[in-house]
């Protein structure tokens, strides 16, 4: 009996200990929250400290820690307790779907996928911002009306559009390789092919080995990436095109696909096209350009002088990357990779009113001039300082990376989102020249953001089969005619329904 009593006592003590600890921790937090009161924040209705969670999709390098100076600054300014969830871009969609399965979203997050946006919008996951936005002039003045309305039903705004430079992926070529082989800048698709071939066979890096590649691309689960300039030149649509008032998807353009596949097949056989393309991920062609093995690839003008060129010049000190206009197709078509951003920043519809306001205050601040300078450059005195009439970057900028919020999450509508205070005007002009020059090759998608129900259900699966068929033709494992059958299969497997539904949505909107 005594033993039993002791055992029970032990268990009871253990439980009390655990529960007690939890309580104490909570109390401590509550007290701390009460103490840290920002002077002056009460008058803006910020007297209560709120927890705010934001989920951000990240690229190379990962996010901030919770005690990052930028987080601290925002926490103090708005009397909040910001919790960022940094999710790698590759698995962001997966993460959202997992969160959806338990219906448990953060306060503010991004939706990159148009079909996800429309599906969840109808489920009431996002907060309608329309009635609230009038109190936030910085957001209203900065975001174009058209972008605000896109993908939203009339009179509703379920998310703030996330800006993306239309020509973020811009074709580039190694000028020093051209010079070495005394070649002209290619202007047509044929010249493009010859240049690429020369890059493979004439040893442009001068190491005596045939180890360079002409051009490359990547294969995702549902599309072939990195060769939009070729797709455009061969007459393919940027997803959709208008023909006699009807929308026609890229997937059914059999003649164009076959011509492009034939071109790529020849390039593959002759070693002009990267043999690794089926296993390449999105950024691999760009990586290979930076690794001094590839002659032409799409790069980001905002990063070419700050990242690509310095990386490349470590391997080849005389290397030079310049913009290459999209090559002209046989019928004179010339198009550049053009992105219409369909990404949205959304607020959780479950937010209580005071939290809605606080979140919008933070977002409005980031859209303001002051906030824009802060999120692009960091904190004055920590990440940069003023030196006379010039600005100087401090070392902390590179280690803290205070700019990631402006590149990954909340962007003003401004192609110079990555141009800093201390960058020279000359540099800024050089970057903007890439964007301005590409404007004449804009490749519009008339149906951007329109998502039919069948497309979101079956689109990925049938696209994947079509891509598989095309890639098999490119590597020569299937005859060219198999593309016809694959397109037929795409149509019957749900494609025809997608065409019908998307046209219906389009007709309704226009």
């Amino acid at each position, binding site marked *: 009996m005594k033993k039993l009593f002791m055992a029970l006592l032990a268990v009871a003590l253990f439980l009390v200990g655990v529960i007690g600890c939890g309580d104490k921790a909570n109390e401590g937090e509550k007290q701390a929250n009460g103490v840290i009161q920002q002077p002056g924040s009460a008058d803006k209705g910020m007297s209560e400290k709120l927890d705010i969670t934001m989920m951000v999709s990240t690229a190379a390098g990962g996010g901030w820690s919770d005690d990052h100076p930028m987080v601290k600054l925002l926490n103090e300014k708005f009397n909040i307790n910001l919790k960022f969830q940094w999710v790698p871009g590759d698995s962001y969609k997966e993460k959202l779907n997992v969160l959806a399965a338990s219906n448990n979203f953060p306060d503010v997050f991004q939706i990159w996928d148009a079909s996800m946006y429309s599906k969840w919008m109808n*489920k009431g996951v996002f907060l309608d911002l329309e009635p609230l936005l009038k109190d936030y002039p910085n957001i209203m003045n900065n975001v174009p009306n058209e972008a605000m309305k896109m993908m939203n039903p009339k009179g509703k705004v379920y998310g703030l559009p996330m800006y993306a430079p239309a020509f973020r992926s811009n074709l580039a070529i190694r000028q020093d390789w051209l010079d070495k082989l005394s070649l002209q800048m290619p202007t047509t698709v044929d010249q493009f092919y010859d240049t690429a071939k020369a890059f493979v066979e004439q040893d442009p890096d001068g190491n005596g080995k045939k180890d360079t590649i002409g051009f490359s691309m990547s294969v995702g689960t549902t599309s072939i990436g990195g060769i939009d300039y070729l797709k455009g030149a061969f007459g393919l649509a940027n997803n959709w095109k208008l023909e006699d008032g009807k929308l026609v998807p890229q997937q059914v353009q059999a003649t164009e696909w076959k011509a492009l596949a034939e071109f790529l097949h020849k390039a593959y056989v002759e070693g002009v096209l990267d043999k690794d393309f*089926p296993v390449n991920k999105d950024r691999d062609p760009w990586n290979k350009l930076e690794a001094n093995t590839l002659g032409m690839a799409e790069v980001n003008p905002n990063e070419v002088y700050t990242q690509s060129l310095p990386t490349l010049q470590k391997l080849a000190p005389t290397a030079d990357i310049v913009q290459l206009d999209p090559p002209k197709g046989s019928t004179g078509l010339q198009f550049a990779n053009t992105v219409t951003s369909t990404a949205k920043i959304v607020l959780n519809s479950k937010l209580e009113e005071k939290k809605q306001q606080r979140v919008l205050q933070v977002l409005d601040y980031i859209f303001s001039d002051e906030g824009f300078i802060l999120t692009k450059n960091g904190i004055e005195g920590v990440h940069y300082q003023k030196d006379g009439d010039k600005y100087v970057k401090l070392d902390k900028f590179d280690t803290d990376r205070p700019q990631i919020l402006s590149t990954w999450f909340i962007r003003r509508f401004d192609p110079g989102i990555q141009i800093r205070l201390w960058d020279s005007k000359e540099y800024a002009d050089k970057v903007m020249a890439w964007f301005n020059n590409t404007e004449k090759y804009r490749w519009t998608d008339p149906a951007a953001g329109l998502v039919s129900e069948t497309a979101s259900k079956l689109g990925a699966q049938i696209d994947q089969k079509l891509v598989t068929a095309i890639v098999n033709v490119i590597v020569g494992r299937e005859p060219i005619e198999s593309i016809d059958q694959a397109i037929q299969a795409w149509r019957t497997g749900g494609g025809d329904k997608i065409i019908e539904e998307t046209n219906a949505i389009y007709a309704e909107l226009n």
Partner: protein
Amino acid sequence: MADTKKLLRRGIPMYIMILPGLLYFLLFRYLPMGAIVIAFQNYDPFNGFMHSEWVGLDHFARLFGEADFWRLLKNTLILSAMNLFLFFPAPIVLALMLNEARVRAFRKTVQTITYMPHFLSWVVVVGISVLLFATQEGAVNKLFVSLGWDRIELLTNPDYFRPLYTFMNIWKESGWSAIIFLATLASVDPTLYEAAVMDGASRWKQMLHVSLPALKHVILIMFILRLGQTMDTGFEQVLLMQNTLNIDVSDVFDTYVYRVGILSAEYSYTTAVGLFKSVVGLLLIIGANSFAKRKGEEGVY
């Protein structure tokens, strides 16, 4: 009657002690199984599974009617068969060979080296294989080109996928899996070997008639457990090795569930696929176990 009561009472501290473990299994292993119901619904996370529409066996009907079903089944079974007949014997052979090595230092070194790869994640192993075997930039192909040979498309040619898959499995896991067999061999009574020597058995005969029979029981148990995993082909490894060109042979139930379930958010349908997989695995275990018992062997349970 009083005795039973007394016994029960004496057991109370023990029951309290197993309570946390019991709770753990109930809470984290058995309770989540309840969510299997979504395989029979059109689960909508925003309605929860109390209010989602009930569709009965619709999702199973869709799976069996799917054009991809037979391809998935075939790929899964072939990879499993390769695991069972090529990978499974590898650690046994390795253990027998190590057992024959008489120099202790040598045996220990080899054993350590062979089980090391177990601690690498599949991401690293597949990454290494890309560095080695990529068609354009891979080390092996660069060597081939410099020797004037043709490139070999190890990663993208579907013919190489299955051998490469099995080879990577053997390289990574056979050392680790050999541990249990080595432990069994270490416990064999040395007098058995001595007796065999007295009878004039060679090293080969000793292995055949002493070592191998000693392993028989462990091999059987491992085999039955392995059968239960027939439908699991190593999700991470297959997904990482998969590309557009080999998808015809590399698409298995696991990768299909990932693609359709997580990427296209069809929770109910893919739960049904997962359930189908588990049921097949369970049937195989039960079948193999009762077969083993009928043959007079000890089963897993």
